[in-house]
């Protein structure tokens, strides 16, 4: 609403012309000035300038509701993992950004593929009954794996080939390989969401393009990168809120260099500012060659919790029963140490492991 043109907010034609002479055409331009500046630019007395600002503000300001009205609307996207859903009080919250971060091969893309299948399921099966917009920057998307997860996880529902094809047709894949491409795609995403009827946006991954193009040791690049990420975050939050859909992103890991006294450790990439921007952060990490864990490292509703899982044919499977909650002593989600794979399973005679 900030880019709304002044002409259409009821400001008089003469005033619009006068402001145009000072390059003020949209509400954003006018509201970015202080009242005294508006006096000079518009040639009005202080009181009249305040009245002008008030009327333009009315055109821009978002509506006021109460929390009670929101109670009827907001919903969650169930992840089909009961233990995780219980901790998150229903699932991934709609209208917010959820980030999945962790070392390579741990299951982030698997999680994204699984969520894509879930979103296309009808509401009776626990899905969102909608399309999925999948923005892939690493070329890691595998349609075969998508179908395999669908058929293994919901064998009854996907018993007919027709349904499988219909599901696959509802996942819209966009391959973007540079930062600018990703930004352009996000800026135009509104149209794609409306035309495809999307109920879930996945961006896999945020970190890869940014880390390719920005060397943060060079001066000025850190700020540039933060601005870019901030732009992406605010665009995604806007879309998530306006359409009331969940947004899932994946991130990578980086080494946090320690001082001489303590050794460094591995943590989520993209820095402290990015940790502020995501609403929920799920960390996936290794326990040993087979066993992995999901940590809820940042959430407005859930405590610090850890769940063990493995990756099977049907996607992510959480071990153990749901009645016990496993909590851990967490810390700043931007500094939570992440356990990486320290050994490799060379013994290929045992059950095949599905790493992405």
């Amino acid at each position: 609403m900030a880019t709304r043109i002044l002409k259409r907010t009821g400001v008089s034609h003469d005033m619009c012309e006068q402001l145009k002479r000072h390059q003020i055409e949209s509400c954003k331009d006018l509201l970015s000035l202080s009242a005294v500046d508006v006096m000079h630019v518009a040639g009005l007395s202080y009181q009249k300038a305040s009245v002008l600002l008030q009327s333009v503000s009315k055109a821009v300001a978002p509506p006021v509701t109460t929390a009670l009205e929101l109670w009827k609307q907001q919903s969650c996207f169930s992840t089909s993992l009961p233990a995780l859903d219980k901790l998150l009080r229903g699932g991934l919250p709609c209208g917010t950004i959820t980030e999945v971060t962790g070392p390579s091969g741990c299951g982030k893309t698997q999680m994204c593929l699984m969520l894509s299948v879930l979103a296309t399921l009808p509401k009776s099966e626990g899905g969102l009954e909608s399309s999925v917009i999948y923005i892939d920057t690493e070329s890691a998307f595998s349609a075969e794996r998508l179908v395999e997860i669908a058929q293994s996880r919901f064998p009854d529902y996907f018993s007919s080939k027709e349904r499988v094809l219909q599901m696959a047709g509802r996942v819209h894949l966009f391959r973007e390989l540079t930062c600018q491409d990703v930004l352009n795609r996000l800026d135009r995403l509104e149209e794609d969401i409306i035309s495809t009827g999307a109920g879930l946006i996945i961006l896999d991954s945020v970190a890869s393009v940014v880390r390719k193009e920005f060397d943060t040791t060079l001066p000025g690049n850190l700020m540039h990168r933060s601005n870019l990420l901030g732009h992406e975050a605010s665009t995604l939050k806007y879309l998530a809120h306006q359409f009331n859909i969940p947004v899932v992103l994946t991130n990578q890991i980086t080494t946090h260099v320690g001082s001489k006294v303590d050794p460094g450790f591995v943590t989520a990439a993209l820095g402290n500012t990015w940790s502020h921007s995501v609403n929920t952060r799920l960390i996936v990490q290794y326990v040993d060659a087979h066993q992995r864990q999901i940590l809820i490292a940042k959430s407005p509703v859930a405590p610090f919790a850890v769940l063990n899982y493995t990756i099977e044919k049907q996607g992510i499977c959480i071990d153990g029963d749901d009645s016990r909650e496993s909590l851990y002593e967490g810390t700043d989600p931007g500094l939570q140490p992440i356990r990486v794979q320290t050994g490799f399973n060379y013994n290929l005679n045992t059950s095949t492991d599905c790493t992405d």
Partner: protein
Amino acid sequence: MQRSVSSLSLSPSVKMKLVNAGFQFTADLLHLKPLQLSKEASLTQQEALEVLQTVRREGGGGDEGGGGGGAAAAAASASLTALELLQKEEEMKSIVTFSSQLDAALGGGLPVGKTTEICGAPGVGKTQLCLQLAVDVQVPQCFGGVGGQVVYIDTEGSFLLQRVVDIAAAAVQHCSLLVEDDEQRVAMETFTVETILSNMFLVRCHDYVELLAEVHLLPDFLSEHPRVRLLVIDSVAFPFRQHFDDLSQRTRLLNGLAQQLIAMATGHGIAVAMTNQMTTRLSGGGQSQLVPALGESWGHAPTIRLLLHWAGSRRMAAIFKSPDHRGATVQYQITSEGFRDAGQSEQPPSKRPRTQSVEPAGSQRDASR
């Protein structure tokens, strides 16, 4: 004391015409009539009338004479004695945070009539504290609360209803256990989760322009809803940290915003709570430090600053700017019921969930099967 014509709150073109016609000080204008002024200064009759009204309103009151505010400003500029202010401040209550240690450090809770900033690292509990305050402001007066409504401006999308319901339910239960007399019993009938939610006015702003527009409109909103006692902005930092090429413009806008918030806090008798993020500041030698975002000049805007930070896995709240109280640091925790004192557990030990230690990278345990 002579007041110059160019300091009046008139439009620049009118002022220029007056100065060109030879009117330097307001004293020159005091005894004129509109028609005469319009001929001498080549103003329209309307403009001449406006000039004279402004002069009488502003020029006559001496040095103080209100800014652009009009008659009300002139009346309010009569001075207050410290005694009157002391009486006023005693009437102003504080909003409890349900963490008794933090309330004690703040002198009762978040003060009404002042602006407070809550800054901290991600995930440390800023939004949780804001949600707790939004519920606590509604605690009825007979229980020691303020019994007011809240305007919650969300710029990050962290306002999740399930969490608010949990916190509200816990607060209602807490109060229902304290009921002692009839007055409190009656008050509990109107203090339920539904009424708590209906007293929270929610606005979702996506960028700084929407935030500024909303703050412009708030004084009217507050006049129409006199029961509002708390304004929460979560967070101020997020919309102002992107899309700004000109940082000096950002500083100007933030200062303007701060002034408006302070005016609302004192003028309408509300508490203002704002959250801020942290940013990495690189000092010489490659060392980096986390400092509050939005720059040094923003530090002057709030009256009280709370810094929430991590000490290992413990959460600490430090008061590092306050005109009334010493800087103090207390520990707190976030439970399923909301913001509470650390070490306070309402569940018996057997019911507490099993805690698993999550081992960091480079750990001691051998990863081989």
